């Protein structure tokens, strides 16, 4: 059994230590907000936070997460009110929506480390998250809005 802390809740999972964390999160724990995209760390759809860092759960073995803090899109905020989530909603960012849990998880790391990112900072931070619908302009706009919300003390 492997002990996992996902969204501040402890789970005991019966899984091979080499199983991708994404599989455990989706298929064993049942949190399906995190998506499978490419399976080889190329697209960013599967981004979750491991001790606050935006790891790609499709290539992260569950053994790496044992005893660590895992946060998925479901646990990013108490009531879907992280500034990035609020801004995504305000700007109607998603089209098909498939990549956006990963996009938001990456944006959350950017906003934590750089509360007032420039366009260049956003491009550098988000370059690993692919959107097949091409919503990049709205993503950039939403991150600027999220920055404003965060500065005004919006929900974190």
């Amino acid at each position, binding site marked *: 059994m492997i002990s996992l802390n996902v969204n501040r809740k402890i789970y005991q999972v019966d899984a091979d230590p080499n199983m991708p964390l994404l599989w455990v999160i989706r298929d064993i724990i049942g949190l399906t907000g995190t998506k499978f995209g490419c399976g*080889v760390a190329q697209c960013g759809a599967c*981004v979750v936070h491991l001790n606050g860092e935006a790891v790609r759960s499709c290539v992260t073995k569950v053994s790496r997460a044992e005893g660590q803090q895992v946060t998925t899109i479901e646990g990013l905020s108490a009531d879907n009110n992280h500034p990035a989530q609020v801004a995504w909603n305000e700007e109607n960012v998603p089209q098909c929506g498939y990549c956006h849990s990963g996009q938001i998880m990456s944006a959350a790391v950017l906003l934590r480390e750089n509360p007032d990112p420039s366009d260049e900072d956003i491009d*550098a931070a988000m370059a*690993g998250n692919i959107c097949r619908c091409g919503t990049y302009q709205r993503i950039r706009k939403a991150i600027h809005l999220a920055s404003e919300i965060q500065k005004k003390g919006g929900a974190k």
Partner: protein
Amino acid sequence: MKMHYLFPFKAFVIIGFISSMICIMAFAMHDSDNRIMDSKTVMLVIKKDSITSVKAFKQVYTVLMSARCMNCHPSGNIPLQGDDNHLHTMSPRRGLDGKGVYAMKCANCHQPTNTPGLHTPPGNPDWHLPPADMRMVFQGRTPRQLAKQLIDPKQNGHKDIQKLIAHADDGLVLTGWNPGEGRTLPPMSHAAFKKAWITWLTTGAYAPKK
């Protein structure tokens, strides 16, 4: 009375100090050109031989300029990928510490071990580029430029000869010989590389003419 009591002790200290200095100076005069003491006082013999040194460096250069080494020593701030040294897809940035920026840190994709399968991220627990203030660029360097850079502590991460020798067994260096599926290995074994590297350094670390 007090002076008389202390005299023999002081005399021994002074005589001992002078004797030590004479020994150290004699040793330094005799061996300063060919021996280096490291922190563990292990003697490293430097036997200067420019022909052997340059010949060894030419072997070293072929390894350092191979994709497995050069791809993480780029001239810009984006690592390289593949045998053709193309820019890393997704354009991850070096960052100040060499470990990436924001949601694009090296360890977000590069796991402690290689990920199975073709075109998957190779792994190492300490995956990184050289830091921004010590970029250690290999890409585009001639053999002469690279040799001079490698032995300059201001450009090599403040490494002396002992540390440079030890660096041949650095975990990330060794990863070059365990690059994951589908990647070309450096042009010689790690043992052959290490031998050439040590030969180059212990024969005077001469730089080729070009």
